[in-house]
């Protein structure tokens, strides 16, 4: 297992967001983290990276990382593509990529420009002036620039046109050949194409784990757990 999460608890202000979340992610491919609005999917990703205070155990490739600082966890080989991209708007594309270079390298610019040739054309452009799709490419490129063991990808299709979602799916498929992906995603068509496993959260608790195909091929279970039909979008993250 590349990731083992056990008893993850997150309290933000007066809100108890995650209640003892436990799941595992096996090495290789894509595992989808699903759930309705406010289920705690985004908070789970942020807790894995210590971006929000959490208790519980997080093991990365067998090594306990809970209690470590965000940058220490990331340097163990975790890439993060946040919800809303969070590219640095005032920096150029080139500067965004340079910033993502981890000490010691290697830095796979060839890979990044092969996957996203448009970024090479826009190296000197400020990231804040890129389109939504290009910003998403940049956010993914930052994560794929380094050698990672695990990519945490949060709602990458959010706000993108259908043809861009199709391109993005291709890119994530290729990325999954290189690195294990834990994917939070609303677009179940994309999940069906990419994910081999799924974890479903509801109100901060894990309510279902198993093969993604099994979940998505059963409309009743999908409707019960995600609140939608198997081809639809269950809602944004919290």
């Amino acid at each position: 297992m590349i990731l083992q999460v056990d008893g993850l608890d997150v309290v933000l202000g007066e809100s108890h967001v995650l209640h003892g979340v436990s799941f595992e992610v096996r090495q290789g491919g894509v595992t989808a983290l699903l759930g309705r609005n406010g289920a705690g999917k985004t908070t789970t990703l942020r807790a894995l990276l210590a971006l929000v205070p959490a208790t519980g155990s997080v093991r990365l490739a067998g090594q306990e990382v809970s209690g470590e600082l965000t940058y220490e966890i990331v340097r163990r080989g975790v890439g993060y593509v946040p919800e809303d991209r969070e590219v640095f708007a005032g920096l150029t594309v080139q500067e965004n990529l340079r910033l993502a270079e981890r000490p010691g390298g290697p830095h796979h610019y060839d890979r990044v420009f092969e996957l996203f040739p448009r970024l090479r054309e826009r190296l000197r452009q400020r990231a804040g002036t890129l389109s939504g799709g290009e910003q998403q490419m940049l956010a993914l490129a930052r994560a794929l620039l380094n050698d990672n063991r695990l990519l945490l990808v949060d709602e990458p299709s959010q706000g993108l046109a259908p043809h861009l979602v199709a391109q993005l799916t291709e890119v994530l498929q290729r990325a999954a050949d290189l690195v294990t992906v834990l994917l939070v995603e609303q677009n179940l068509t994309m999940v069906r194409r990419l994910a081999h496993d799924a974890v479903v959260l509801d109100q901060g608790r894990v309510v279902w784990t198993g093969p993604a195909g099994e979940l998505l091929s059963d409309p009743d279970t999908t409707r019960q757990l995600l609140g939608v039909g198997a081809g639809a979008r269950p809602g944004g993250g919290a």
Partner: protein
Amino acid sequence: MSTFILMTITGLGLAALYFLVASGLSLIFGLMHVLNFAHAAFLTLGGYTAWLVADTTGNLLLGMVVGVVAAAALGAVTESGLLRRLHGDHVPQVLLTVGLLLAFTALVRAVFGSDARPMPVPGWMNEVTPVAGALVPNSRFVLIGAAAAVYLALALFLARTRYGLIVRAGVENRAMVTALGIDVRRAFTLVFALGAGAAALAGSLVALLQNAVSPEQGMNLLIFAFIVVIIGGLGSFHGSALAALLVGLVQQYTNFYALVGMGDLVVVLLLAGILLTRPQGLLGRRLA
């Protein structure tokens, strides 16, 4: 015309002082979200160190350099030893920096007394140079030259170095910088030290301008530096430079052409006008 030139260069000198103090304050707030009242203590430290070394050795430049280095070192220790423990707790941070300022000012009073001490200023600084008919005191050129050099050095640091890149990104989104695997705490310490060093330089220049050092010099300048930071845009280095120019010139022109003392009021009105029409400041980013 010669009076206007004199007032303009004097205003630019004032702007230079504001910029030296405000640039560090702005970067510290932008990156660390800390309102650093202790900044005035570094200013006072710079002034007193320059005075002490110049008085002892007769070498003013050495005194200024020692003051900048001492303040930068103390700034690094303050950030890494004290402020870091309060990361994210804004009220305790403000209380800490206010406490440091009060304690340092009291310490200076206890050691050197409350009275101003005469600064050994080189004779050429009190002489004048004619510029288009205006007789401009040389000290004004020193102020402007020092601020221009610091502006250039900091601008190059921000634009060309990896730490500069980290600082610029950190001002935008600190959490995301750490999520890229960067230990942003080192940038905090560096920015705090750079800001303290620039404030110390301002402290020694104020002492040169006023021919004296006194325990309250830092506090007097701090309030206008905060106004410059807000007008320029919190976290915007170039905004601080622009706002310092605006505040320095407006203050000087008003004091001369309207009424002495009126300049402070006009600056406060300028601040109010900026906050009403452009709350993010001249070059600041609008918060979501």
